[in-house]
């Protein structure tokens, strides 16, 4: 999904100095007792967390923000999910599946004996209802397009713009074979179809409850989500400041969850969250919950606090930060000008200032952990570690500008950056780097919604901009199609790039069934994109957080899973 670069809040920026103060530089609050390493799960206890923003929607079909995604994950299950610490697809409510040779007809065997938290039995009817509902126009699912591959999806969307279908009417591509077997037909083969079924929006709803969601939402009422997941959300008003999740006693995964309860308090910004964590008021600083990282000043202060440092973790995340261009507008329509930016940018310094050097420097689009990642792909090697290296890189940039017809430099127009902490530093660094080779840009900081508005305008108002992309599922299609396919122009492709060769390769790879061949095709696309310098990646994502001394497991992937939200069903609190 597109996002501003690691969205810390504005107040976290303003409170950077306060963070240093609150970190107490070696002076901590009453430190939690450090417990011995605990490898045996302990049952019971309440995990206390805090988020700044409340969940946007509790209706899984409408989930698009990370907090709602996390809540969703506690309450619901999908047909398939990811393994505990990796991006491998494993069974969940579906125990097994198969597909025909063409890859267009999928048959799922469903888990028997599972009940929703209200006691209703889980059957194929619920799956059919859920997948149909996502495709209904009135549902307003942000990810409806992901399920457009299911046969009958477009017809459903067209017929349900003002009213849903009856609860027992399903997409033509969905067939209930028996209460525990369902068949789904897609219009084209899609190798990542299982990943799509693992998205939060495909969380399986209780049909008898969810059929009332449309009427409730139209009346402006909060829905009560009912799922088969490890926790049950207690009824809460939309204005609540505390969401309470109680253990689901009938959860089908025996022995889980370990916790009795998860309390998520709403409202504390990162500065306050950090202070609350040091005081022991919350059990983990859930940067992973809201998909942000410790701000640079907070990180430095944390390093000086022995207790906090012991509780800190930091893992790569599957996302990339990059500079983008409208490739149809001068001077950015000239590939040599874009390539000059590659040489001009001091990516190492950008990483140091914006991320304390925690983010891996990026020279390609697909990040580590994404199938198709090429660690050796670096078409524009520039060594800014030495003065000689810097001079050489800048000389290359100037030579490219000269070859592009700009021997005396060029005005690149406005450089759009999405507002948030780090925005002014990024603006300053990029402006300075580019000015050093003769490219003048005027930074302008705007809100994310304004950015989207500018990007969707025709012609685009974004000539040169900074953005990030985080994976929705571990398939190169998620990155390369969304960011570079001509069909996505103005949608997520804010470059408005539209190269027939690239489009053809993407179409072939997207519907291919041979994974090895698909990866080769995506590799070709990535190389072409980098050769044409449609974007200039500069840093890959990382995810960090703080986990209390008596909270286990310490495995970072439980808290910052490569794909899923934090897996709190595996968490326990040592006594």
């Amino acid at each position: 999904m597109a996002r501003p670069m690691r969205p810390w809040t504005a107040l976290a920026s303003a409170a950077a100095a306060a963070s240093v103060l609150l970190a107490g530089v070696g002076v901590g609050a009453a430190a939690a007792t450090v417990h011995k390493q605990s490898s045996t799960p302990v049952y019971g206890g309440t995990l206390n967390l805090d988020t700044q923003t409340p969940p946007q929607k509790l209706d899984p079909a409408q989930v698009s923000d990370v907090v709602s995604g996390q809540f969703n994950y506690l309450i619901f299950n999908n047909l398939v999910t990811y393994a505990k610490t990796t991006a491998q697809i494993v069974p969940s409510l579906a125990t097994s599946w198969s597909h025909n040779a063409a890859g267009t007809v999928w048959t799922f065997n469903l888990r028997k004996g599972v009940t929703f938290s209200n006691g209703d039995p889980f059957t194929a009817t619920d799956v059919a209802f859920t997948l149909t509902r996502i495709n209904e126009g009135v549902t307003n699912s942000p990810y409806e397009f992901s399920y457009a591959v299911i046969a009958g999806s477009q017809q459903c969307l067209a017929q349900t713009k003002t009213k849903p279908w009856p609860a027992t009417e399903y997409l033509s591509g969905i067939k209930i074979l028996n209460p525990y077997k369902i068949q789904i037909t897609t219009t084209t083969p899609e190798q990542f179809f299982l990943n799509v079924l693992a998205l939060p929006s495909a969380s399986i709803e209780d049909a008898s409850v969810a059929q009332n969601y449309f009427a409730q939402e139209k009346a402006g009422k909060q829905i009560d989500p009912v799922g088969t997941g490890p926790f049950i959300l207690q009824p809460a008003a939309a204005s609540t400041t505390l969401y309470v999740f109680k253990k689901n006693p009938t959860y089908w995964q025996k022995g889980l969850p370990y916790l009795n309860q998860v309390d998520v308090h709403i409202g504390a910004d990162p500065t306050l969250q950090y202070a609350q964590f040091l005081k022991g008021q919350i059990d983990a600083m859930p940067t992973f919950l809201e998909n942000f990282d410790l701000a640079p000043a907070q990180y430095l202060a944390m390093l000086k606090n022995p207790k906090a440092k012991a509780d800190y973790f930091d893992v790569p995340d599957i996302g990339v930060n990059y500079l983008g261009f409208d490739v149809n507008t001068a001077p950015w329509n000239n590939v040599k000008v874009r390539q000059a930016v590659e040489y001009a940018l001091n990516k190492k310094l950008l990483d140091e200032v914006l991320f304390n050097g925690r983010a891996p420097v990026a020279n390609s689009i697909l990040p580590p952990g994404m199938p198709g990642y090429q660690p050796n792909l670096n078409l524009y090697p520039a060594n800014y570690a030495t003065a000689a290296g810097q001079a050489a890189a800048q000389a290359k940039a100037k030579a490219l500008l000269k070859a592009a017809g700009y021997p005396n430099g060029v005005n690149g127009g406005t450089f759009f950056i999405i507002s948030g902490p780090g925005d002014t530093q990024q603006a300053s660094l990029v402006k300075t780097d580019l000015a050093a080779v003769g490219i003048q840009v005027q930074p302008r900081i705007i809100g994310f919604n304004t950015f989207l508005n500018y990007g969707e305008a025709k012609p685009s108002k974004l000539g040169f901009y900074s953005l990030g992309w985080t994976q929705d599922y571990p398939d190169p299609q998620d990155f390369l199609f969304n960011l570079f396919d001509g069909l996505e122009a103005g949608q997520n492709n804010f470059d408005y790039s539209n190269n027939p060769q690239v489009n053809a390769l993407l179409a072939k790879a997207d519907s291919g069934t041979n994974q090895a061949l698909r990866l080769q095709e995506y590799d070709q696309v990535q190389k072409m994109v980098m050769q044409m310098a449609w974007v200039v990646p500069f840093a890959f994502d990382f995810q960090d957080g703080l986990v209390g001394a008596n909270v286990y497991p310490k495995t970072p992937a439980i808290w910052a899973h490569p794909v899923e939200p934090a897996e709190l069903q595996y968490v326990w609190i040592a006594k």
Partner: protein
Amino acid sequence: MRDRLTAYVVRRLALAVLTVFGVVVVTFVIGYLLPANPARAILGAHASAQSVAILDKQLGLNLPLWDQFWIYFKKIAVGNFGVSYYYGVSENALLWPHAAKTAALAVASLIAELVIGIPLGIVSAMKRGSVFDRLLMVLSLIMFSVPVFWLGVLFLYEFGQIHPILPLGTFGGFLALPYYVMPALTIGITGAAVYARLLRTSVLELVNQDFVRTARAKGLSEGVVLFRHIIPNALIPFVTQMGLDLGTFLGGLIIVEQVFAWPGLGYLTVQSIANLDIPTILAITTFAAIAIVVLNIVVDLVYALLDPRISYS
């Protein structure tokens, strides 16, 4: 007298309605003109253009400005602030719980301002001209100048971490008094300076009035003269200031609520602006405008009741 009062109230109410209407129109137009699409903001960057177009139509965002405003105006005229774009729940369900929490903090903050400001003002007036008086006035200037956010974070550090006698942020319940202390003190200290100076100025204006000279001439002690005659009259201007403060507070204590994670209107305002939740922005703005306007009317009426020299004509 009663006729004059009635006429005055009717005039003020008519003006209040016009003022609130003006605020609603201006805010609505600004929301309409923002370079961002609420439907896109709701669905996120990933949603298809088709989905955005469907939601645009559902929300009436494809209608002309005047049509959109007329639909909205018909709703708020009967107290229906609509449905939040972002949360999908009715504005009433969002607004009133947050407003109640802001109101609770507003009252606590006002009490803190008075508890700190009045004694300071009294002592300063009693010791007028002395070094103590001058020091107090400098102190009040510092109190007035200190950034609210900075003071709030200092409190969090001191009472939440170094001497953790108070909870760190959030709202523990309307009767959970420990949660009020830090945010109320933060506002109270910065606002008390105004009351201290106001009281001092009022006292100094009254101290040479005839009724005070009469009281002294009757042989009353200085303390009795001060507390029984001067200060009750000196507090009359407080009514205006308290009304202004309350009205402003009810509009949302944005910075303090953010620092302490107090889930009031200020917190909701920041969230709704960031999420381009225009119905919520409109609801809060309308509520704040009504609160300020109504409180101003109440203040004027109370002021006239307290001071018989004030005439409604």
